[in-house]
């Protein structure tokens, strides 16, 4: 009941006119960047980070939440109409959604995506509302060794799952870890890999790496292999609303997608690709119309879209309650909290209830706003795709530049942008996954601090790393994840 009161208080914060305006700004911005190529929610929030000096924290986070949710809505639009997912999480939507659009059922596909996103977003926000305070108490039981085990498992899973081969996944991961150790060691104050350069003492900012890998790397890559004939846009045809049968076939996938997406989003390193993929596979297995899959099955849009949005809410649980970022977007949000001198974690709920509950309440508000913005207005949104590509990519570079330069006005950051951007280009050309770099960079320093804290508190005894039940389970899982494929191969060879 106390949660309910706090939530009501949150609504009184979120419904203030200024905050409503920021929610609208965030939703519009989020939808736009979801539709546009080359720029996603993590990047957008990273670019807006320096703005936090001028904005009250509540307003800023309400806007960021709008961007986060909005990008999920916008991403599905391009997947369906253009077969070009603006976000990694919308890849699965493109499979069936675009087929539906080509078969003249684009409106139904857009509707099931938007309503599914709304349903999933709302249910997941409800789950967040009631789970978060309880999860926050866990912070007092989790020890450094547990956190280390979580990060170790995230490393192994992300490197194994993402990318074409495990070697390439690990190369990306270790590049991220290697970038993460640059700068002053927080535990001893020792400068590491600074090569005597003062500017490197503070380390390489996540924003710079994000901007360079995603925006700059993408611009260089697309420029070098530009396909100037853009994809054909399927016209929005068909009834604007879903038929009775569409509803009947959609509501279960929505719920199943939510059930998959929310917990998966809360796990480090799973991102939005894995839950959407799982949801798609599940719907394909459960459907009564298997013949339609691959030709435009509505379940294949409804499930992954719901999973996608639920995962976006899921990442907020460990972030707000434990201060644990599980994706690039979450890491950028964490940086935003730290800009305000706020430390996400159990104490944020007690020390700053207006912020936390205002943010949570704004997620409900944002969802309603996005449904309204996206369902009837989708025709206006797709006009964004008419921006000529040369000017669009040029504009993205301008914003990338402002984001990097605005951080500290340092030419060193611009140099890093060039170097890491080139790296991002090479990774695209030779097909190395990008996401593990970020996971390594974000969780690497955390893994290190927790490992060293655990060992210091345990006076150097390595057994302390598996001393709690949770850490023992997670470390075992991580080892299995690494060893299992090799073992299976051996067994098969022997058989």
């Amino acid at each position, binding site marked *: 009941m106390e949660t309910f009161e706090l939530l009501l208080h949150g609504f009184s914060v979120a419904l203030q006119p200024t905050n409503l305006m920021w929610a609208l700004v965030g939703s519009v911005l989020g939808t736009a960047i979801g539709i546009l190529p080359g720029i996603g929610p993590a990047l957008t929030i990273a670019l807006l980070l320096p703005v936090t*000096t001028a904005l009250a924290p509540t307003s800023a986070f309400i806007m960021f939440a709008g961007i986060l949710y909005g990008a999920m809505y916008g991403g599905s639009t391009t997947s369906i109409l253009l077969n070009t997912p603006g976000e990694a999480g919308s890849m699965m939507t493109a499979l069936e959604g675009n087929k539906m659009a080509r078969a003249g059922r684009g409106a139904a596909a857009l509707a099931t995506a938007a309503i599914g996103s709304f349903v999933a977003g709302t249910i997941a926000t409800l789950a967040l509302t009631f789970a978060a305070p309880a999860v926050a108490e866990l912070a007092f039981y989790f020890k450094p060794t547990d956190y280390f085990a979580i990060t170790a498992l995230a490393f192994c899973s992300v490197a194994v799952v993402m990318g074409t081969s495990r070697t390439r996944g690990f190369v990306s991961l270790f590049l991220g870890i290697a970038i993460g150790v640059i700068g002053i060691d927080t535990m001893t104050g020792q400068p590491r890999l600074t090569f005597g350069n003062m500017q490197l*003492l503070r380390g390489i900012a996540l924003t710079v790496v994000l901007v360079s890998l995603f925006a700059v790397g993408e611009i260089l890559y697309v420029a070098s292999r530009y396909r100037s004939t853009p994809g054909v846009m399927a016209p929005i045809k068909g009834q604007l609303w879903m038929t009775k049968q569409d509803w009947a076939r959609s509501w279960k996938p929505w719920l199943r997608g939510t059930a998959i997406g929310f917990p998966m989003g809360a796990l480090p390193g799973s991102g939005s690709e894995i839950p959407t993929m799982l949801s798609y596979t599940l719907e394909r297995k459960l459907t009564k119309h298997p013949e339609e899959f691959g030709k435009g099955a509505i379940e294949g849009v409804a499930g992954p879209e719901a999973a996608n949005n639920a995962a976006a809410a899921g990442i907020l649980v460990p972030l707000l309650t434990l201060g644990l970022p599980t994706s690039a977007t979450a890491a950028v949000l964490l940086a935003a909290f730290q*800009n*305000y*001198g706020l*430390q996400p974690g159990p104490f944020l709920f007690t020390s700053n209830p207006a912020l936390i509950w205002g943010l949570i309440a704004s997620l409900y508000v944002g969802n309603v706003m996005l449904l309204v913005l996206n369902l009837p207005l989708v025709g206006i949104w797709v006009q964004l795709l008419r921006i000529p590509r040369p000017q669009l990519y040029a504009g993205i570079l301008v914003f990338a530049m402002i984001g990097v330069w605005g951080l*500290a006005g340092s030419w060193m950051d611009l140099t890093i942008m060039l170097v890491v951007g080139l790296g991002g280009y090479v990774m695209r050309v030779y097909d190395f996954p990008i996401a593990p770099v970020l996971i390594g960079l974000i969780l690497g320093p955390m893994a290190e601090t927790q490992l060293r804290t655990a060992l210091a*508190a345990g006076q150097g005894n390595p057994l302390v790393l598996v001393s709690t039940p949770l850490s023992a389970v997670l470390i075992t899982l991580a080892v299995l994840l690494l060893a299992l494929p090799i073992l299976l191969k051996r067994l098969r060879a022997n058989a």
Partner: protein
Amino acid sequence: MKFSQTLAALAMTAALGTGAASAQVNVMLPANPGGGWDGTGRQAFQALNDAGIYTGGVNFTNTGGAGGTVGLAEFLGTSTGQPDALAVFGAITVGAIALNNSPINLAEFRPVARLTAEYLVVAVAADSPYNTLADLVAAIKADPGAHPVGGGSAGGVDNIAVALLAQAGDIPVADLNYIPQTSGAETVTAIVNGTLTAGVSGTSEFSQFAQQGRIKLLAVTSAERRPNLPDVPTFHEAGYDVEIANWRGILAAPGAPDDNYATWVDRFTQLSKSDAWKQVLETQGWEDYFLAGDEFGTFIAEETERQGQILKDAGLVN
């Protein structure tokens, strides 16, 4: 044609805006936006403005990193000899310079004013068997490795406070198991989940958690008990001759002309007596710790000496 007209108009506005800006004071805030130094600088200039002491323009630069040494190094490069260039810094900078082998020498800058301070408290878990500072020190003395103590960054004021306490309690500083934490809230979490035996942080940071009943406050590093924490004894009362504060102050650029320097010392002296500043101190929960000009210079030299020595004893600096 329209475009070029608009551009010209834009350029004009920019010229006007920044033209006025050339008569500004440049202030280096060697931390990211949102932290204590950032707040000290911005609030002080807001109060200077409100009190009518200095109403001109202020141009802030945030350059965070490495306890302020990155920002001060940049300040040294860009502002040496400039008449109206100031930088915020504090106790943490002193330790960070020694720790990072930074080429910065605080004595080169011109000391304007020490403004605020925050005292530190030592805390243990609410269900901890230790009820006094003496209990805690005795336990650490018996087995320093098994009693990890946490606080802010290595070589920062929290670490130095623990080291001074150890010295006063006859514990070899190098034997301490000090584990740096990223924030006061993290320190509390680590105390509650049992990773740390005790923790150190600023009074404002810890007192809210003590009110929630998560931790017990054992002692405070001020000379006398704090009015907002009447039940917490000082280190002196507990039998340890330690006094330390996390202070913050203002420096002028090396080689700043005497006239400008004297003006700034005078302005901050007026500020310290103004109602506007007292209002800021109250709302922010900062302690008044004012000291100006050469006396502040002497204080910085003493702090450099004291912190350098304790860092050597702790084995953090050679």
